[in-house]
C-alpha cells in the first residue's frame, strides 16, 4: 500500500546515464510524495457515508441535551429588580437623588418571598442591564500593571486611564474608567423569621473572585501598610473611600479586594450579573435559604438612570454547568433532533438516488 515501497529502478528498468564526472540525471525522484501518490483517505461524502455520523450525533446530542435541561431546571434562581423606576418601588426616592458622592447614604429595603428553599450554597449576584462594560474605550481604561502592584504605574498611570489617570495632580489608584465606575451599592439580606424577627443572613465576601485574579493578576503595591503603600495617590473621582479602605480585612483590601476584582473583570454583554456574595451552607439539615419572606436592604449609591439601566439582585444555586440556562439543553436537544431528522432524509435520498446511480452509467 505504501507507495514508497517501490523505487525508480524496478519501475522502469532504466539505467541512469552517467557520463564522466558528475552527470546527475534530472529524472525526478519517483517517490510517492513527489509524484503525488501519497496514500490518502478520500472522504467521499455521500448520503450513505454521512448517514451514520448524523445518527450518531443525534444519539449523543439528545441525551446530553436532556441532561443539561434537567440540570438547568434543577437550578433555583431568584431575581429582584431594585432599580426603583416605578413610583411604587421602595427605591424610587433613592433613584431620583442621583449623586455619585452624596454624603447622605440613601437606603431602601425590598421585601420578597422565596417560594422554594435553597438547599446548597447560594450565590448572590448583582445584575446590571444596559451597562456597556464592553465599550471599547471603557474596556481599555485600566492599567493592569498598576493593579499588579507595579510601583511605577502606581504613580504614573498609563495613558489608557485618561481622563481618570490623575486627579488634582495626584495619580489615581486604581486609575481608569472601569475602576471609577465601580459598583458601590451595598446589599444585605434579612430573613423574616415566621416569628417576624429579621435575621441577617451572613454573606461571605471572599471566594467570589477568580483565584488567578486574586493571587496573580491583582497585587497590592509593596509596603508594610496599605495606607503607606498608596501614599501619594488619590482615590477615583466617584469613590467615597480610598482603595485601601475597601475592607477591614487586610487580605481583602486594596487592589485585591474581591468586589473590586470582580468589577474589574469586564462583562462581555451589556446585561450582565456579577457575583456579589456567597451564602455558604452551614448545616446539612437546614436549607441555606429556607422558604419564606426576606428583605433586601440596599444602600443605594449607584446611578443607572442616565443610561436607562436596571439593577437587580439575583440569588442562585449553581451546578456543574454554571447558572441556570435552559438554552444549552434545548439547543442540544433540537440540534440532535435535526441531525436525526436529516439522517432520515439522507436515508431516503440514498434509497432514492444512490441506488439508481450505482447502476447508471455516467454520461457527464
Amino acid at each position, binding site marked *: 500500500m505504501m507507495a514508497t515501497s517501490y523505487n525508480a529502478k524496478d519501475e522502469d528498468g532504466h539505467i541512469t546515464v552517467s557520463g564522466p564526472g558528475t552527470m546527475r540525471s534530472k529524472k525526478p525522484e519517483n517517490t510517492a510524495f513527489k509524484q503525488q501518490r501519497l496514500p490518502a483517505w478520500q472522504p467521499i461524502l455521500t448520503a450513505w457515508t454521512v448517514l451514520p455520523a448524523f445518527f450518531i450525533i443525534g444519539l449523543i446530542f439528545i441525551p446530553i441535551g436532556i441532561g443539561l435541561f434537567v440540570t438547568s431546571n434543577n437550578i433555583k434562581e431568584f431575581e429582584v429588580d431594585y432599580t426603583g423606576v416605578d413610583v411604587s418601588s421602595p427605591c424610587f426616592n433613592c433613584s431620583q437623588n442621583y449623586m455619585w458622592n452624596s454624603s447622605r447614604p440613601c437606603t431602601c429595603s425590598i421585601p420578597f418571598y422565596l417560594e422554594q428553599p435553597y438547599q446548597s450554597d447560594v450565590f448572590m449576584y448583582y445584575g446590571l442591564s444596559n451597562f456597556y462594560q464592553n465599550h471599547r474605550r471603557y474596556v481599555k481604561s485600566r492599567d493592569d500593571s498598576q493593579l499588579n502592584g507595579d510601583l511605577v504605574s502606581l504613580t504614573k498611570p498609563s495613558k489608557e486611564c485618561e481622563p481618570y489617570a490623575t486627579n488634582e495632580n495626584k495619580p489615581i489608584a486604581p486609575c481608569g474608567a472601569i475602576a471609577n465606575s465601580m459598583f458601590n451599592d451595598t446589599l444585605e439580606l434579612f430573613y423574616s423569621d415566621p416569628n417576624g424577627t429579621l435575621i441577617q443572613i451572613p454573606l461571605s465576601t471572599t471566594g467570589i473572585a477568580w483565584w488567578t485574579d486574586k493571587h496573580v493578576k491583582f497585587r497590592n503595591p509593596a509596603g508594610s501598610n496599605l495606607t503607606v503603600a498608596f501614599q501619594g495617590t488619590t482615590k477615583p473621582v466617584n469613590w467615597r473611600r480610598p482603595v485601601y479602605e475597601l475592607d477591614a480585612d487586610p487580605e481583602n483590601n486594596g487592589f485585591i479586594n474581591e468586589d473590586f476584582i470582580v468589577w474589574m473583570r469586564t462583562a462581555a*454583554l451589556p446585561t450582565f450579573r456579577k457575583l456579589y456574595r456567597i451564602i455558604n451552607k452551614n448545616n446539612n439539615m437546614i436549607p441555606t435559604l429556607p422558604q419564606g419572606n426576606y428583605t433586601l436592604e440596599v444602600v443605594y449609591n449607584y446611578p443607572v438612570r442616565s443610561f436607562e*439601566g436596571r439593577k437587580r439582585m439575583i440569588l442562585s444555586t449553581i451546578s456543574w454547568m454554571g447558572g441556570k440556562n435552559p438554552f444549552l439543553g434545548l439547543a442540544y436537544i433540537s440540534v440532535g433532533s435535526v441531525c436525526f431528522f436529516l439522517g432520515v432524509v439522507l436515508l431516503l435520498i440514498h434509497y432514492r438516488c444512490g441506488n439508481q446511480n450505482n447502476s447508471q452509467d455516467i454520461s457527464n
Partner: protein
Amino acid sequence: MCFALQDVDIVKVPGWRPEVCCVGEMERLHWVQHRVRQLLVVDPGQGWYASPAAALPNKSSTEAHSLPHRGSGKRRKVLARHGPHQQDYKATSKSFKSNAIRTTKYSLLTFIPMNLFQQFHRIANLYFLFLVLLNWVPVVEAFQKEITMIPLLVVLTVIAFKDALEDYRRYRFDKKINKNVVQVFCGKQKAYIQQCWQDVHVGDFVRLSCNEIIPADMLLLYSSDPRGLCYIETANLDGETNLKQRQLVTDLPAQQGSELTPESFDCRIECENPNDDLSRFRGYMEHPSGVRVGLHNSNLLLRSCTIRNTETVVGIVVYAGHETKAMMNNSGPRYKRSRLEKRLNTDVLWCVLLLIIMCLTAAIGHGLWLNNLKDPVFQIEGETSPALAGFYVFWTMIIVLQVLIPISLYVSIEIVKLGQIYFIHNDIALYNQQLDSRIQCRALNITEDLGHIQYLFSDKTGTLTENKMVFRRCSIYGVEYPHEENGRRLEVYEAEQSESAARSVTLRSGCSGRSLSCARSSVSLHTLTAEQEEEEEEQLSNHSRTRTSAFCSRVAKEVIPDPELVRKLNCLSSVDGGSSAPPCSLELTHITDFFLALAICNSVVVSSPSQPRHEVPEARTPLKSLEEIKLMFQPFSFSPFSPLSALSPPQARGSPRGFTSRLFARAKNTTTQREEPGQESNLESSKLQPEVDSCCRAEGGAAGQTGEDMEEPKPGPDWSRQAAAEGLSRQTDSEEEELLYEAESPDEAALVHAAQAYRCSLRGRCAQSLLVELPGLGSLSVQLLHILPFDSDRKRMSVVVRHPLSGRVMVYTKGADSVIMDLTHTGKGTEGEQEICSHIKEQTQKHLDSYARDGLRTLCITKKVVTEEEYSLWLKEHLVAESSIENREELLLESAQRLESNLTLLGTTGIVDRLQEQVPETIEAMQGAGIKVWVLTGDKKETAINIAYACKLLRPNDKLLTASCPSKDSCAAYLEELRLALPSAEDSTTVTDGEQSSSSVLVIEGQTLAWALQEDLRSLFLELSCRCRAVLCCRSTPLQKSQVVRLVRDQLGVMTLAVGDGANDVSMIQAADVGIGISGQEGMQAVMSSDFAVSRFKHLGKLLLVHGHWCYSRLANMTLYFIYKNVMFVNLLFWYQFFCGFSGSVMTNSWVLILFNLLFTSVPPLIYGVLDRDTPAHTLLARPALYQASHTSKVYVSYMFWFTVLDAFYQSLVCFFMPYFALSGSDVGLLSFGSPINASALLIILLHQVIESHTLTWIHCLVLVLSAGSYFGFVLVFSLLCVSCSPPTNPTGVDTLHMAQPIFYLICALTTVTALLPRLFLRAVHNTIHSSAGLRSDHTDNLYSEEYHRRMQRWNQSQSRVNRLPVSSQNPGLEPDIA
C-alpha cells in the same frame, strides 16, 4: 527610422529550411525590411551606412558622423588601455563601466531600505501599512500599536527573506562569472596574463582561444584564421547553436602575419553608446594616419558567446560589464496574470464592499446608540457628537475587520503556486529520458490557466512531429528508389535511441559545463523553487549537447541504402560493372551529382567527436585509379586532377593549426594542379578572388610543393571488391572516427547523412572549399565559390562550386518543389535529351506527389553547368550587388535568381519527419476534453492534411473543407458558402457529442488565411471555424499564426494555448494565454518565450488534463476557502458589535485575533491548495471529459463565491450566537465569552476544510492537528504567563479556567456541529445526486490503489518501448490501428 537592416544578412547565416516560413526571425526581419524599403522610397535621401568591406574609408567616415542613431547622438571613444595614448585613455574611459557585473538588486547595506521600498509597491503591503498608520491615530486606535504591525512585519519578513535568498544566489552566480579568467594584455609585463573577468576594462586587449567564452563585447582585431574570420556560437544569447562568422576589422595597420602588438595600437575607436540591439553595431576606427574604417556588427564579438573553430582571437574591449549587449538584453521573468487571479480581484472587491458595508453599519449603529445615551458612566468622551464618534468608529472597524480583505491571500496564492510548480516540475511523467529533461515552468503564476484551456494551437513540425528529419527515399533521374529497408528500419526505432543519446551525452559532456547563460541573472521574484534557475541554465548548456546528439542521432545517421541505387553507384567505382547492366552514363552522372549536391549544398559544419568542430580527421587515401571515372565524365571536359592522397601524415599532424592549413594547402593544391592544363578561365576566376590566395599562400606554398611532386596512386582492387560485397556504408562508420554534422536545420543533416550512406560524405568545410569523399574517388577538395543562402522568398539555396572532376563551375540548387520545378529547363540540345528531360520531370513530379501524400517533406535537387563566361559575367554583377549600398537585398536576390535558372533536375528526396510518440492519443484526449485543436503550420497543404490524419486530428469520415482561394472576394464568398452549408455552432456541439459522427475540418491556406484575417472577413472566418471541429492552417507565416491566436483569444474570449518548438512559433506562443515551448531540435527561442517548456507533445496530455485540472480546482477551492475563512472569522467580530454599542470592541485577546489568520489557520489552506486531489490522475487521463466539466468555470466560481460567503455568514452566526445564548445573562467576562467562540471558530474552520478537501494524507492530518494544537497551546501558555501584558484584553487565567470547565466543551461541540451541519448535509446530498464519474473512480482508487500502482509501473515500462509507425503509409485514412 531606418537602421541596422543590412546587418541582418551578415549576422544571421540564415538557415536553409524547406518549409517556406520556418525561419521565423528571418521572416520578421524581411517584413521589417520590406517596411523600411517602403519608407526609403519616400525618403531616398537618407544616408545609408555601408558594409565595411565595400565602403571607402573617407566615405564611411563622413557617414559615420551622420549615423542615424536611435537614441542619443552620443558616442563613445575607445582607446587601447596600454597603448600609446595613456592620458587620453584615462580621460575617455572614466565613465565606462568595468566588466564586473552585479545583477543583485541589493547590497548588504541597502537591502533593508531598498527591499522595503520595493515591497511597498505592492498594494497589499500598502493596505497593511495604511492599517498600521490608522491604528496610530488615537481616536480610532483599535489594538495596541505593535499588534497591528505584526501582519505587516510577517509579510515583509517572509518576502524579504525570499528576496534575500534570491539575491544571494544571484550574488554567488555573479561572483562565479566575475571570477572567470581570461587572458588580458598587461601593459607592464607586455604580455597576456590571466585575469578575472571583472578586471577587464574597456580598451583592454583580450586573447581568447577556441571554446572560450567571450568576457565582454569586443572588436575582433586578430584571428588565427588566415582569412580573418572567427566563428562564434551564440547559444548562450539566443540558443542558436549554429556558428556565426565574425570578421576582422578591415585595414588594420599591422594585420598581416604576426599577432598584433597592443602597446603600439594607437587607433581610436569611436562607436555608438551601449544599447541592447544585438544585431546592430556601428562605429569607426581611426588610424593614426587619419584614415577611418567603418566598424560593423560583424566585427563585434558579443559577451557570453563562445569562440568556435578558431584557434586564437584577439580583440579590444569596447563595452564591458553591464554595458555589453548581452547584459542589456537581460529581461526579467514573464509575468502573466491568470484568469483566476483576475476573477479573484473582483471577489476581493466584493469583500471590500462587504467591509465597507459592515463598517458603515457599525458607524451608523454607534451614532444611533450614542444618541440615546445621556452621559453614562461607561462613556468616556462625552463631548464628541454621535456623528463624529460614528465616523471614528468607521475607521476603527476597518482596523478591527481588516482580515476580511484577503490580502494575505495573494501571498498564499504565490506560495501555493510555487508548490504546484514544484509538483509539476517533479512529475516523472513529464520527464524525458532521452533528453534527460524535465518540464520547465518559466511562468510561475498561471498554473491554473492550464486547467481551462479551450483552444489549442499547435505547430506541426517539431511539435507534433519529432523534427528528426530522416532520409526516407529518393528519386533520381526519374527513377524511384523506394528504400524499403530504410522504411522498415524507421518503424523500429525507439529502443536504440536512448542508447545513442546516452552515448553522445558522454561524448560531448566535456564541453557541457562551459556554457554560461547571461540571461539567467535576472531572477524571478518567485523563484523559491531552488533548482528552477540552475536547471534552466543547465538546460541551456545541455541543449547544445543534446541537440548535437539529436541531429546526429542514430536514426538519422544510419540510412540504409537502396540496393538498386547502390548497384548503380557501384558501377562508378568498379570497372567491371559485373552482373547487372550498367546504367547509362547520363544517369550515372545524375546520380553522382545528386549525391554531391546532397553533400555540399548546405551549410553544415563538420566536426569530429574527439575535437569538436576543430580538426578534421585525416583524409582517406583513395585507392582506385580514376581512369574509368574519367571515361564516365567524358561528356564534360575533364581535367586531370591529383588526389591529395600523399599529403604526408607527419605534416598533417604537425602544427596545431593543422586542419585549416592542410585544407587550404589542398585547396591551393587543386588550384595549381588545375592551372597546369592551362585553363584560362580558371586563372581568371582565381584572380577575382585575391583573398583566397592571400590567405592560402602562407601555408599553401609548402604543401603545394609536396602536392605537385606526388604521383598518382595505384588502384586498390581489394577495396572495390569489398565494397561491392558489403554495401557501402557500414564499414566506414565502424572503421573511422565518426563525423559530427552540425546543421542549422535537421533537414540538412538528414541529407548529408543520406549522402554519407552512399559513401559520398562531407568531410570538412572551410570558407573557400569543401572536402568531400566520393565513392571510389576518395577525398576531393571542392572549391566553393559561393553560397546563395536560403531565404523564404526564393525558397531555395544554392552553392556555386567548381566541380572537382570536371573543373567546371557548377551550381547546385535545392529547394521546394513548387519553385524548383518552374526553374528547370525542359531540355535543350538534342531531341533525345529534351525527351529525357521532360520524362524525368514528369516522373519526378509524380514521385513528388506521392511523397507529399505520404507526408514526406520533399526537396528537389538540381544542377546547372555554368560556362566560365557566364560565370564571370554573373560574378561581376554579383560583386556589384554585394557591395552596393542601397537595395543590396534586392540586388542580391536578383543576382541569385539570375543564376538559379534553367536548372537541370537531378531528382528529389523525401524526408520523413515522424510523429512523436502518443501524439494521436494526446490529440484525441484534448478533443475529448473539449479543447479545440488547431494546427498552424508552414507546410504544404498535402503534408499538413496527411499529418493531421496520422495524428487523428482528422478522422476518416470527416468532411474536409479546403479553403484556398485566388482572391479576397472569392474567399469571402467561399467562406460564406461554407458557413451556410455547416450546421450552426449550437447544432454542431450536439452533433460532436455523438461519437463517430462526421464533422467538418477546415483547411485553410496561407494566402486565404491572410484574407480571412482581415477586418471584414474575420467574424465570418471565426464563425465558420467555430462550427468546425478542427482547423488546419497551412503555409502560414509566423505573423499569421499569432494573428490567428490573437483573433480567437480576443474575439471569442476563450483561454488559448499555443505550442511550438521553433523561432517561427515565438509570436504565437507569446500571443496565447499559455505558451508552451517544445524544447526540441530548433533552438531555444520557443522555450525562452514560453511559459512552460516540455520536451514532447504527449506531455501536454498530463500537463493539461491532470496538472491543469488539479491546479485549477486546487486554487479555486483554496481561494474560496480562504475567503470563507476570513468572512466567517470577521463576522464573529461584527456580530459582537451589536452587543457593545458598535464601539469596535472585540471579545478576544488581540494577539489571538491577529495570529488567528496569520498562524493558526494559515497553513491548512496552503496544504489544501498544493496537495488536494479532487480526482485521481489516471481517471483524469482516462476521462478527458472531466476536464471540460471543470472548466465551465465562470458560473461555477461566481455562484460558489456567494454560496461560500453565505455559508460563512451562517457559520459565523451559529458560532457567535450559540455561545451568546448559552452565556447571556450570566456573569461571563469579555474574554471568557470570546474563548469558546474562538475555539469553536477554529474547529469549524479546520473541519470545514476536512469536509471540503477531497484527499486527506498524513500531511493534511499533521497540519490540521498542528494548527489546532498551536492555537490551544498558545492560548493556554499565554493565559498562564501573560500577567500584565496585552493590556486591555489581559488573558491571565481565562482560558486555563474555561478549558477546565465542561461547559466550554459543551458549547464548542454544539457550535461546531451546528455550524457544519448544513454544509455536510448539502455536500452529501449533492454528491449522492450528482454522483460524478470522478467520485466513482475515487472509490476504485481507494480499493485498487495497489492495482493502480502496478499499472503505472507497466505503463512506465512500456512507455520506453512503444514502437509505432506514426506516419501513414499509402492509405492515410486507414490508420486507426496506430492507437
